[in-house]
């Protein structure tokens, strides 16, 4: 079968009995087997479980129980979402043996819609990183160039979709972790409004910033997945009941009169010239379709990263306290007493980047520094939110790049953490303000690497960014990485 098929197209073929669920699942499992040596997008592949599940789903489709658009379609889940009975490592040594006894709500919703889970996607350890190189289980490679990173932290999810190992995947986004890897790998990803998707069963990094979202080959797939996984959940009190969640209704090629703002401050120093050109061309394409495009000053852009790293590290230091070798996960072999066991377990179980953020977080929350750093960051967050509110009084959608560059070479980023953090300049403010964002391909640089376009919307107005993204997508053609074409089955 043609593995370049989208999730919705495959769902339709399954429904029309052109292909069985087992055939589709087997085809993608074979694709994984053929490509993993080079890509390493997965921590766990569950071939046996997936085929068994495929057989069950086929019966439910045949019996008329499962009728949804994604029934029988295989999916990869980022390894920070718990699945009952399936190893869930968060790409960390400290969870190397953790097999949850419950399932994340977003995953449960996909299962109820007939998804066939083929495995768990690699990521930066505890989602801390922008390259997927901090994974304890080894780096994931970019299908567009095996010497480059896929982005992160949902790098495994993005690479698996681009390499055609799965039609779609779930990722999570705390500071850009869905949008940036989608951009680097030439696929589409949505970070929903904070509260749109339940975080129950998502292993927490920065709880006030984390959101689960889809990565797929096109806007239609992403809207379809989001429609399934969204909604209020009693098990996550920050999830909300909110209208405007008929996302697939926004898949219309019409942006006439839509007001699109381009923040001038997103196009300054540090932005690669080819990225700039492609993003501006995308704005022109939307303008040609009748959107009203205008430049404006968003302000405060350079303060988003410092505020983000204070808040995210503070929350991480608190969230990761639970990993102490008592209730689950890795425990050190030898220890003298309880405290020594905690310390040794954590020191052996966490990688360098995770330790760095826990240390920073512990520091900014410590007495004497709490006001100067943590409270200052929360005040900055309020100002950033205000800046977006002001912009959204005038515009329906904000348009800009996803990242300042295309995919970087493996090994280039980790030596200089601050430089790596600066790569998140266009994405982190969206998480601070709780807004929805979509990332989709808008061109390719002279090295042939994909360039990502980012569209941001008002709270709970995913529909506007989906509409704008869909309209833009109609002016482009989906490009497959040579790797996927050559290694296709």
């Amino acid at each position, binding site marked *: 079968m043609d593995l370049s098929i989208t999730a919705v197209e495959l769902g339709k073929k399954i429904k029309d009995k052109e292909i069985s669920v087992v055939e589709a699942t087997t085809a993608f499992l074979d694709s994984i087997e053929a490509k993993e040596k080079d890509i390493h997008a997965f921590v766990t592949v569950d071939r046996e479980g997936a085929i068994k599940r495929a057989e069950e789903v086929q019966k439910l489709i045949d019996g008329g129980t499962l009728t949804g658009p994604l029934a029988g379609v295989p999916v990869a889940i980022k390894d920070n979402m718990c699945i009952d009975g399936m190893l869930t490592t968060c790409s960390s040594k400290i969870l190397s043996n953790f097999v949850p006894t419950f399932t994340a709500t977003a995953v449960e919703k996909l299962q109820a819609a007939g998804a066939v889970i083929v495995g768990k996607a690699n990521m930066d350890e505890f989602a801390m990183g922008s390259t997927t190189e901090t994974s304890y289980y080894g780096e994931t490679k970019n299908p567009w160039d095996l010497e480059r990173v896929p982005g992160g932290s949902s790098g495994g999810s993005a690479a698996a979709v681009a390499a055609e190992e799965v039609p779609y995947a779930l990722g999570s986004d705390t500071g850009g972790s869905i949008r940036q890897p989608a951009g680097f790998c030439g696929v589409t990803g949505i970070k929903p409004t904070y509260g749109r998707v339940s975080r129950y069963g998502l292993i927490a990094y920065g709880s006030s910033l984390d959101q689960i979202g889809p990565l797929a080959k096109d806007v239609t797939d992403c809207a379809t997945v989001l429609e399934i996984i969204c909604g209020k959940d009693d098990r996550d009190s920050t999830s909300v009941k909110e209208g405007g969640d008929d996302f697939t209704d926004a898949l219309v090629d019409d942006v006439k009169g839509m007001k699109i703002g381009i923040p001038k401050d997103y196009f300054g120093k540090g932005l690669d010239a080819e990225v700039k050109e492609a993003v501006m061309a995308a704005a022109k394409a939307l303008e040609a379709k009748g959107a009203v495009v205008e430049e404006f000053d968003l302000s405060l852009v350079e303060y988003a990263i410092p505020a983000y790293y204070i808040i995210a590290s503070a929350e991480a230091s608190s969230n990761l306290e639970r990993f102490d070798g008592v209730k689950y996960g890795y425990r050190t072999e030898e220890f003298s007493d309880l405290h020594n*066991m905690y310390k040794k377990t954590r020191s052996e179980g966490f990688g360098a980047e995770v330790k760095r953020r826990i240390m920073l977080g512990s520091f900014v929350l410590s007495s004497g520094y709490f006001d100067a750093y943590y409270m200052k960051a929360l005040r900055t967050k309020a100002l950033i939110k205000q800046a977006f509110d002001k912009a959204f009084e005038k515009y329906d959608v904000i348009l800009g790049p996803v990242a300042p560059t295309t995919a970087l070479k493996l090994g280039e980023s980790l030596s200089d953490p601050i430089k790596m953090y600066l790569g998140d300049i266009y994405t982190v403010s969206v998480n601070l303000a709780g807004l929805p964002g979509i990332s989709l391909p808008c061109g390719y640089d002279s090295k042939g690497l994909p360039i990502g376009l980012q569209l941001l919307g008002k709270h709970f107005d995913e529909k506007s960014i989906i509409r704008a993204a869909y309209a833009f997508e109609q002016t482009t053609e989906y490009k497959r990485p040579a790797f996927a074409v050559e290694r296709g089955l």
Partner: protein
Amino acid sequence: MQITDETIEYVGILAKLELSKEEKEQAKKDMSNMLDYVGKLNELDTDGVEPMSHTFSVHNVFREDIVVNGDDRENMLANAPEKKDGAYKVPKTFE
């Protein structure tokens, strides 16, 4: 901002991390760089700005106090590194 040995020692206690001598030196450097960098926020006048934790107004969420889950002990203990008599087993905490 200069990070002293005492600070790293103290943060290590808060973070429950035991760092090797090498790691401590690296951590001092990293944290100092990072604090210099995030110190950029001091350029901003935030007087009178309320610290924001939630970006839109969420209120306390109330529900009826009805038990919906069982005791779930087996599930909770399923991943325990060590357990004994239906409880987590940890090293002795007091003499």
